[in-house]
């Protein structure tokens, strides 16, 4: 039986009627058309589907949309202010070639945003430990680490 939920996504509220078995990842992509959240493994391993639930990085493929009733969801679409106004972290990825095909990138960005808020100047080891939760088949991670380091610096400069 469908249930009505009301959820805020990137600051906009949506009311939808959903089947309980609808995963949050599919809700975002198919119901709201927010295809920036990628779906890789659908069992929690790859991290491509990572979004923020009330500010906390979680796998959207392991949550049901009904569980987000009354909650706040943030996806990669909400990061940039517009095509000319990338989030400083996105700028770091652009400058340092932190992506090739880009499939893993939305999940990595959404994992990193709260991480860098708590830990604005992480060591390389801390960055690599966080990245262990996201699989990238292209880059070999080296460029991603550099992108995060630059992104962290840009965030600090922006807030200084």
């Amino acid at each position: 039986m469908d249930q009505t939920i009301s959820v805020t996504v990137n600051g906009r509220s949506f009311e939808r009627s959903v089947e309980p078995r609808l995963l949050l990842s599919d809700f975002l992509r198919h119901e709201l058309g927010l295809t920036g959240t990628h779906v890789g493994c659908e069992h929690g391993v790859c991290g491509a589907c990572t979004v923020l639930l009330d500010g906390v990085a979680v796998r959207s493929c392991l949550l049901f949309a009904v569980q987000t009733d009354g909650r706040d969801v943030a996806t990669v679409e909400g990061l940039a202010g517009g095509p000319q106004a990338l989030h400083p972290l996105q700028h770091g990825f652009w400058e340092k070639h932190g992506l090739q095909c880009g499939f893993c990138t939305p999940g990595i960005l959404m994992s990193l945003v709260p991480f860098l808020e708590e830990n604005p100047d992480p060591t390389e080891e801390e960055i690599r430990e966080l990245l262990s939760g996201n699989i990238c088949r292209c880059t070999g991670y080296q460029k991603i680490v550099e992108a995060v380091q630059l992104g962290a610096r840009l965030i600090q400069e922006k807030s200084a």
Partner: protein
Amino acid sequence: MKPAAFSYHAPRTVDEALALLRNYGDEGKLLAGGQSLVPTMNFRLAQPTALIDLNGIDELFFIREDNDELRCGAMTRQREVERNGVVKRIAPLLHETMPHIAHAQIRNRGTIGGSLAHADPAAELPAVAVALDAQMYVRSVTDARWVAARDFYVGLFATAMLPEEMLVEVAFPQSRSGSGWAFEEVARQHGNYAMCGAAAVVGLDGKGAVENARLVYFSVGEGPVVADQAAALLVGEQPNAEAIRAAADTAASQDIDPVGDIHAGPAYRRHLAGVLGERVLTRACERAAGAEGQ
């Protein structure tokens, strides 16, 4: 859609959840963090007809100190356990273990109760609960009881809980003065399930000899494996390198009987058990000696 259809229930109290659980029996499943359950539903290995979501039950989210014990509500997120100062002080072994469980994004959602109830043989928390003599508080509509961690695990993904029972709370006794502890695991990648892991708790007497020892492995059997023969060898001995090595060798050759999988064969798991056993016993004894000297 990936999972099979189910009816969704979001109780606000433990009593409501227990009533639903009794109603649905084997067909119902409790949903905690969903970090183990939802993957199996996405594969349709699990097809519950009813999901009882515990995420709205405020009384299940807590960490507190009570009579020298650490009490954690079943729904306490793994990330919260990892970062909580009371946990660090009362149960330092638990604190040291938490970062080894999966990745931060999984621990943000995964719960202590979900991991303990799931009884995955490769999971860290069941082994640590056994090493620390934790007590599980289990309730049903008609009954409430405490079960010692060692009696809680009865086989592969199996616990002493009945289908209408749920884990409500877990209690860890305070780390005793004069006792030491250590945790180690080997995984292919940080955050993956380990190929072998070990937790040790050792207490020394006034003369520096081992008074009590417990060495518990995971990922080498159907659940947490207590290395009783190894511990018996060590008790009464001075904890020198030779005695510790003999105990770890016994653990690896006698106490465990690992099977192989795609990640590691039985011989490699035995090898890891010997090396990790030696390391955790050594560090636990050092910490116990350090605690004595204070």
